[in-house]
């Protein structure tokens, strides 16, 4: 905030911080929330990462040493890997955000048939362990691929490399952009766009002068989230990257191949820097843009675009993409009923029988732990969004930065940092379920915080002020005004946390214990043995579990947090943006 202010404004910003700090000191519940959040973040985010930093900057005897750092920074091989990782991240971020935007815009603005179907397609890819898509690519386009070999008759097609990686990552991560953007697009007040139309602007002009600028913060934040996901993605480069090695793979290779955790930590820190930098830049850029559009003043329902020349091209683009997504998932589901892919296509239920025989316990563990972490993470995320979005006080910067840091940490390094940090008394957590719950909670919370903050920034202060003027205290205003508006953010946060927790691979590979195995580590083991049928069976069951639980979350959140009829305008708004 200081960045934009001049000398007189600077003292105003300081005054606000001082005032807000005083306000918080007067409100015990808020104060406890702030202090508890700071302690949790310091313990479970900052401390393990500091451990990794120290580890990477010391030698075997514990003395300070930059030898590892120097070796890596002067090695052309690692610089090349670094360049490749960034390039892939940029390409995937641009493409995935474009696809996500087209879907979000078409679903929120255009009068097309089959909207429910489109929404499902746009969230489906988030619902499975990513390496499943890689598997489909091999099944469909590999040397024994259904499409390449059986349909087109191409022999010896090499699918391993950057192009496949881009396709698979775009398909895996565009839902993140879609979720962020559809939230933003549906909360832009319809009357703003209508006003542009009424004043004679065409659809095209309205889009570029009103809709697009208003959704820009969402675009940036969606692209950023995708970029970071691409950087830290492990499963896809590991299965289909071929010789296109990315940093997260290099970290893993060094740690498990040459047992050199110090060198691995240095590389991981190199991966952290661009991600965190990008995030912080964006944070200030978004905050500088004011985009108050939820005014609480009377608005009418949005009129959807019906012109055929806009409607049908968008519909066809979305349908084509949807067809590809379905084809990929269909391949995996089909694979779960086949005896041996590529060799014997006779149908069987054996894969499910065997999968349940070995893996029922781990499936159960995954569900329980993901559930706990999603609920905790969703709520903590909303609390952090609430205490950081509109107030300014001493310690806020710390909460803001620390709460999103985990998002940029590659899973493998996260696992190592937790082992380094929590394997000695008094912080002895390795081997327990708690360490998994904690990793999931803090790693997957940033999406809840992001969407919570974005929503809160769009709510005009006057709504809460009005409520306060009418005699409500701040707790009542929060419960009746802010919370219902946060419902969607909470929902997307919890869904994201749950799916990410239940599909996490690299973050847990070092943390699962004999007592607490998880279904993804079972699947990963099956990949090692080419038991793709069983792996597909697990994945199909996982998709079923996820759909079931998302339905349950949706119902519960609607029941618990539905706005009361006493605020009719907001009810309508909330229903619309759903």
């Amino acid at each position, binding site marked *: 905030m200081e960045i934009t202010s001049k000398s007189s404004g600077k003292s105003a910003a300081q005054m606000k911080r001082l005032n807000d700090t005083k306000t918080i000191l007067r409100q015990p519940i808020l104060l406890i929330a702030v202090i508890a959040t700071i302690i949790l973040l310091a313990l479970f985010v900052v401390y393990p990462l500091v451990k990794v930093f120290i580890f990477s900057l010391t030698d075997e005897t514990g003395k300070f040493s930059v030898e590892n750092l120097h070796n890596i920074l002067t090695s052309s091989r690692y610089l090349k890997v670094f360049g490749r990782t960034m390039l892939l991240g940029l390409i995937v971020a641009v493409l995935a955000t474009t696809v996500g935007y087209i879907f979000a815009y078409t679903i929120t603005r255009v009068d097309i048939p089959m909207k429910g179907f489109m929404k499902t397609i746009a969230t489906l890819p988030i619902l499975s362990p990513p390496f499943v898509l890689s598997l489909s690519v*091999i099944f469909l386009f590999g040397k024994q691929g259904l499409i390449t070999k059986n349909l087109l008759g191409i022999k010896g097609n090499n699918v391993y490399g950057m192009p496949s990686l881009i396709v698979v990552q775009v398909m895996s991560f565009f839902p993140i952009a879609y979720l962020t953007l559809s939230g933003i697009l549906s909360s832009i007040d319809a009357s703003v766009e209508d006003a542009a139309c009424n004043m004679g602007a065409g659809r095209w002009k309205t889009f570029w002068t009103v809709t697009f600028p208003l959704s820009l913060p969402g675009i940036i934040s969606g692209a950023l989230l995708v970029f970071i996901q691409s950087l830290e993605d492990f499963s896809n480069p590991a299965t289909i990257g071929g010789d296109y090695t990315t940093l997260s793979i290099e970290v893993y290779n060094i740690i498990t191949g040459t047992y050199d955790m110090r060198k691995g930590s240095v590389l991981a820190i190199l991966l952290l820097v661009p991600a965190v930098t990008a995030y912080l830049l964006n944070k200030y850029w978004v905050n500088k843009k004011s985009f108050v559009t939820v005014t609480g003043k009377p608005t009418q329902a949005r009129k959807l675009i019906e012109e055929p020349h806009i409607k049908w091209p968008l519909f066809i683009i979305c349908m084509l993409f949807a067809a590809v997504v379905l084809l990929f998932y269909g391949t995996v589901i089909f694979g779960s009923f086949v005896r041996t892919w590529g060799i014997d296509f006779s149908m069987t239920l054996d894969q499910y029988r065997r999968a349940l025989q070995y893996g029922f316990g781990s499936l159960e563990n995954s569900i329980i732990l993901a559930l706990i972490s999603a609920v905790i993470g969703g*709520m903590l995320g909303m609390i952090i969004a609430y205490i950081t979005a509109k107030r300014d006080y001493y310690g806020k910067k710390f909460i803001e930065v620390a709460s999103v840091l985990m998002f940029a940490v590659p899973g493998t390094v996260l696992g190592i940092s937790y082992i380094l940090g929590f394997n*000695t008394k008094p912080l002895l957590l*390795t081997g327990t379920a*708690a360490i998994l719950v904690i990793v999931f909670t803090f790693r997957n919370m940033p999406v809840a915080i992001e969407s919570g903050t974005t929503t809160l920034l769009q709510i005009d202060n006057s709504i809460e002020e009005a409520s306060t003027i009418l005699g409500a205290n701040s707790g009542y205003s929060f419960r009746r005004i802010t919370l219902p508006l946060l419902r969607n953010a909470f929902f997307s946060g919890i869904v994201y946390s749950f799916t990410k927790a239940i599909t996490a691979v690299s973050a847990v590979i070092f943390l*699962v214990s*004999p007592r607490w195995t998880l279904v993804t580590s079972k699947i990963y083991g099956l990949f090692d043995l080419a038991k793709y049928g069983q792996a597909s069976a697990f994945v199909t069951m996982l998709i079923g579990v996820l759909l079931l639980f998302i339905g349950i979350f949706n119902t519960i959140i609607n029941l*618990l947090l539905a706005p009361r009829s006493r605020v009719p305008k907001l009810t309508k708004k909330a229903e619309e943006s759903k």
Partner: protein
Amino acid sequence: MKNNIRIVALVICLAVVLCTAAAALADSNKLTVYTAFPESEVIYYFNKFTAETGIQIEYIRLSAGEMLTRVEAEKENPQAALMLGGSTDNYIAAAGRGLFEPYQSPELANTPQAYLDPTGTWNPIYVGCIAFACNSDWFKDNGYEYPKTWEDLLDPKYEGEIIMAHPATSGTAYTVLATLIQLKGEEACWEYMGKLSKNISQFTKAGSAAPNAVALGEAAIALTFSHDALQLTPEGYHIELSFPEDGTGYEVGAVALIKNGPADEQENAKKFIDWICSVDGQGSYAENDSFRVPTNTQAPVADGLVTLDQVPVIDYDAVWASNNKSKYCEEFEEKIVAKPES
């Protein structure tokens, strides 16, 4: 309402943690194992062991490299008592870092001297030699014979059809490299690898990825251990083995006691080591399609399985190989992988 949910969640969380703690304390009749054996295989041995001794086993399957990383990271507070499976490379490295408690089973009496650990720390439990794992469909379609020597692999007809893992990330691939160095000498080995790399489609990360690629028809020949390739055949994949006539290397798989592991599991762990080294334990290899060759000479061998005395194995020096691993892996990266395409 919000507070209620939070309280419920906290209670659930606490209950879960307490249950884990309670389970950990109550049960001293158990054994915790890190294993590199495939899950479907290892469960057979564990069930058999439990049936005989009543000891309950909790385990987790990790790759050999992951096991070592984990045991090292946990050395202040080890979570498991045993490290089971994976080649001696890892065991020699781990022993060098002081991660193991030396224990030699009395059952090793029938194991040939060549397989034993000279430092007396870990116990050998199986052997397997490097083979050319061939996709029989591909060879049939093209009308080729299986390759019989290392030189055969240089034939241009195999361009892009040979697959092996990267020695830095796969113990299997490193055994291949170390075998070739011992067979040909350093200089000739790099020259050979340079030529071979023209036929290699990919240096995969995981050792198991190479035979998998052959199973799926992604490549025609994998350089891998015989048991890793043959374990895919019950799944219905068409893989057959050919052994280099001019000499091949082998791996010895091992089991070892993790230093300072759970105190109440030490006796159980020793019982398991004794069992897996015994005729009874190693005889199980023949019962579950493991395709592993026992190190205990008294143990029965599965029908038709090629044992080491039928193959021209070299006098593979595992200790030398383990001690020189990082040096040769770096040279491999520089001379073979990073080399600009010509």
